[in-house]
């Protein structure tokens, strides 16, 4: 449980003035994910250096405040990160970025950007076995 104040300052304000909002074109990773439960949508784009560092992040989305705030935090977290480190991001890492306790169904909203990253990298970099880490 958390207070309305926490929710307003942490979630709603982040969702209303998101970081790194706007898609990159062209991009090295371009992936859109939906949460079929509620229709949340996250479209994540990355520019990745030849040495495997995430140099630019851009995203757009629609949906509940938690999915959008989480993607905003997540996008800033990714900036400057190596793909090797990105590969090791866990669900807990993403939930920690929000820092508020969430019920399992809300966690799915928060984890949507991680799903977009991992499934995007599966398509572009042949990463495998990503389903288990996000479901």
């Amino acid at each position, binding site marked *: *449980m958390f207070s*309305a104040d926490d*929710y*307003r300052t942490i979630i*709603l304000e982040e969702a209303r003035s998101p970081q790194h909002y706007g898609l990159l074109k062209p991009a090295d990773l371009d992936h859109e994910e939906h949460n079929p*439960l*509620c*229709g*949340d*949508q996250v479209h994540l784009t990355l520019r990745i250096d030849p040495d495997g560092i995430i140099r630019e992040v851009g995203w757009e989305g*629609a*949906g*509940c*405040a*938690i*999915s959008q705030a989480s993607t905003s935090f997540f996008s800033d977290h990714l900036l400057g990160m190596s793909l090797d480190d990105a590969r090791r991001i866990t669900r807990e890492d993403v939930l920690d970025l929000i820092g508020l306790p969430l*019920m399992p169904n*809300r966690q799915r*909203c928060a984890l949507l950007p991680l799903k977009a990253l991992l499934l995007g990298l599966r398509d572009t970099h042949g990463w495998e076995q990503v389903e288990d880490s996000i479901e």
Partner: protein
Amino acid sequence: MTAMYDVESVRAQFPILSRAHQSGQPLVYLDNAATSQKPERVIDAMTRYYREYNSNVHRGIHQLSEEATAAYEGARKAVARFINAGSWREVVFTRGTTEALNLVAYAWGRANLGPGDRVVSTVMEHHANIVPWQLLAAERGFDLVFAPLTPTGELDMDALTALVSGGRTRMLTVAHVSNVLGTVNPVAELAELAHKHGALICVDGAQAVSHQPVDVQAMGADFYAFSGHKMCGPTGIGVLYGRRAVLDATPPFMGGGDMIETVALTGSTFVSPPYKFEAGTPSIAEAVGLGEAAAFLEELGREPIQAHVELLTDYATERLSTLPGVSLVGSPRTRSGAVAFTVEGLHAHDVAHWLDMAGIAVRAGHHCAMPLHTSLNLTASSRASVALYTTVAEIDALIDRLALVQKELL
């Protein structure tokens, strides 16, 4: 509230309604369109089956099997009375509404539909009444069309009539009550329309049976599908009513034990309805629970339940519509059970989350009706849905909390 209907004594029969919620507030359960709660007598009837006469049906030559068969078939007769079927043979037990609608598509549809034929449905349908027909249309090559809605969220009867009367319409498949808009469709009128044009009508009654009297014969339904769990019965059991002549002419759905007359390696013959459509060991405890739920609703009285549900639906509609920043989804003339709404500046999921933090359970999302939401330009809505045990005070709690959420978050 009518003097006859004492909602507090109804509530007292539902153990779950007095459970604690993590918020410390009383549970306000307004997600009845997703599933209803179960009265103690339904739970007890199922427990009794497992404790006292658990056995397979239709095959054992022993006392327990005789008792289980009597209870299982007794439940079928209770359900037949509940919807005024012409015969118990017209009541097929399924796993739920979804399986019942799939049965219609795969057994009746596969045998009767092909290129040039048309199935008419509507934009307000639950996915269970869309996807099976899409899957079958891809296989059989018939035409699947959807009647549009009016701006108030009712069927556009002129457009629907044009769709049914044009082309070779073989089936009109439609919800009795919309699970999002709460719209009550004029199913008897629709049955007449379908029959006039040589088509059958299949009615998805999932949202209707618990809230109003249902008479499949008066309605003129050829098929009528519903679930146990939305009418105070258990999950895992549902019903497909089929008119006897239609069931007789429909080939089996799934093959296996209980549905055969003779089996030879060169081929098999099948028994009469309903058994022709009930392959394998059925959900016996669940059928017993469903029969008990039907008896429970009959004893409370279908008309008093309908009056209560409609009064609460109207009250919720009226109070929600007076909240600034809250928009109702649809404004049908007759609304039963469900009221969907959006809150300006807040996503449906966030609304549901904040209501839950005060013990109020609503649904958020597209409610398995994505085409409807798309047609309304919505990605999601929140939905409050009432039941025979919902109180005016619970609706007031919803409204107060919504007003507080808007104040605190916006």
